[in-house]
């Protein structure tokens, strides 16, 4: 267990480092600085801005600065106290280049709860619909109910979330004004975007769960349970469910990553002030610090979730040995 966590931590550090480095290289390898679109700036103003954000530093110093509290001054020594931010190792994502007086930390702190609420709603929809659909399908295979659930899940898998969003808004916000078209503030604002974001994953969960249940229910050990006289309901709940949930649980990691990705689009469609819309805006406006900060936050979130999934996996299946295949 400890070794598993340590190993995952090492991988995690490696991934974060790779993300930072790759983003850094990408950003620097593109011609023009972050402020180059502000062509109206007076050269002296620009110089001042550059100085403030250390854009005048050599690349290696900027890199170290980005990484952490390793502020080397020109003489290669520690201790440039004038550094504007502490670096990622100090959990300081630096100042936003676009919103001049706000730090990335503040932006993230403000918008992350919004995105988290959206993401949790989406995951909730995905699990609720997916598990219910899969259960119904698997317990009544071949019936009309099963067919309906499977058609719906195939549809859900083949429509991009923004298409689902558009259609939902057309139907449930415009034609029948039940939910708000867009915006943020009340729980009602969460319903449509959460559904649109979660629907493709619900479809996938339904498939996984149906297949998982059918598979576990056809195993020999279920026959043993029936031979013991265990009632059917207990067989489904106690004997089949845990095994059938394993594929669903291992899908939660990729699903979370997908939901985060999808939120970039959904937040935009529904004008939700979440982290995703800040990321898109940041990227489009070449706000390095903001874009990189959000990327890192999302990397951490997905990574943490994956570790949780692996732990849950080991909890369900005693045959899984965490140390072996971390």
């Amino acid at each position: 267990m400890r070794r598993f966590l340590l190993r995952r931590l090492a991988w995690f550090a490696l991934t974060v480092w790779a993300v930072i480095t790759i983003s850094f290289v990408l950003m620097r390898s593109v011609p023009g600085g972050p402020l180059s679109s502000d062509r109206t700036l007076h050269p002296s103003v620009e110089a001042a801005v550059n100085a403030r954000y250390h854009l005048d530093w050599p690349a290696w110093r900027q890199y170290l600065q980005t990484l952490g509290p390793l502020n080397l001054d020109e003489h290669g020594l520690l201790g440039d106290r004038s550094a504007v931010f502490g670096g990622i190792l100090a959990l300081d994502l630096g100042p936003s280049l676009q919103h001049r007086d706000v730090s990335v930390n503040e932006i993230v702190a403000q918008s992350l709860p919004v995105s988290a609420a959206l993401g949790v709603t989406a995951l909730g929809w995905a699990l609720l619909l997916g598990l219910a659909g899969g259960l119904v399908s698997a317990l009544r295979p071949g019936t009309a109910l099963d067919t309906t659930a499977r058609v719906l899940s195939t549809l859900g898998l083949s429509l991009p979330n923004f298409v689902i969003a558009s259609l939902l808004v057309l139907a449930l916000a415009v034609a029948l004004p039940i939910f708000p078209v867009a915006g943020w503030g009340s729980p009602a604002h969460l319903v449509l975007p959460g559904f649109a974001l979660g629907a493709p994953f619900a479809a996938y969960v339904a498939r996984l769960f149906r297949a998982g249940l059918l598979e576990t229910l056809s195993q020999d050990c279920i026959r043993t349970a029936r031979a013991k006289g265990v009632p059917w309901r207990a067989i489904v709940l106690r004997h089949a469910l845990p095994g059938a949930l394993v594929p669903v649980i291992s899908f939660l990691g990729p699903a979370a990553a997908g939901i985060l990705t999808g939120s970039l689009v959904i937040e935009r469609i529904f004008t939700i002030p979440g982290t995703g819309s800040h990321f898109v805006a940041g990227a489009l406006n070449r706000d390095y610090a903001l874009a990189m900060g959000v990327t890192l936050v999302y990397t951490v979130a997905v990574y943490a979730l994956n570790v949780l999934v692996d732990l849950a996996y080991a909890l369900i299946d005693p045959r899984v040995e965490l140390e072996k295949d971390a």
Partner: protein
Amino acid sequence: MSLLEVRNLRVSFATPRGSVQAVESFGVSIDAGETIALVGESGSGKSVSALALARLLPTPPARIETGEVLFEGRDLLLLGERELQRVRGKELGFVFQDPTSSLHPLMTIGEQLEEALLVHERLPRTSARQRAEWALAEVGIAEPKARLTAFPHQLSGGMRQRVMIAMALLTRPKLLIADEPTTALDVTVQASLFALLRKVQREHGTALLLITHDLALVSTFARRTLVMYAGAVVESGLTSELVARPAHPYTRALLRSVPSLSTSLDHALPVIPGTPPDPAHPALGCAFAPRCEFALTACHQRRPALVALSTSASGAAGVRVYNRRVACTESERALAAEVSS
């Protein structure tokens, strides 16, 4: 009245390629405390018959077409699901072929053992646990208490099968059906498992339907034996007699293909020529006719029923055979050939 009386059980499977007649006619009668062996090559319908009589086959694809399964006078095929559940696991225990897949991989041994007690006897958890521990001890598992919290994958194959036996016997069933309980195991543990089965069976007075293809074992174990071929019982009788004087050509062939230590290596082991029939395309006549050395033209045209071997027939062969039922019109010749050889 016998404990279990199965008559004319017919089971088919719906497959994408049409219906497959897996069991064509199965019947058996078991008295309390009695041991009966069911033998036959694989695919002959032994497992399907055993599962069908407790309605353990998934339907669909399986379908029980006809039959009566009288267990203590009640027809299991007519019982409601609830009542049936009270019979399964309580009166009727099962031990399956492969203990590895038959035990639930995600539940502890203890949980799986206790389950039957919780379901059938509504015991409090602690006493169920106590009983489970005793049961493990009874089947010869060392440190039973510690094993309760183990998972199946932490035990050896032989231990797993012991757990299965303990599980089946926990509720003191009147009948135990063991479907090739040692086929999936090492030869070395087979003997000890059979000794165990025999011991617990004696102690509890449990009747046993033992499915096997180990004919050598059958003769020491079961008083009576049933031979199945292609979904039908083709011969039944007292084991000692049946082994000594098979009246069905298939039984005869089966017995001859059993290797023994005395079989010298320069003689090829006699094998039954040909292959078992395809259950998707049942033959018109006797299913064994195409492989039978005694087959006449008539054998290919009409299927013989399982009837008592008449004393005159056995007498003509020069032996006296009791209580034998055979599904073969040429049993007289087969018997005679056996006697003269």
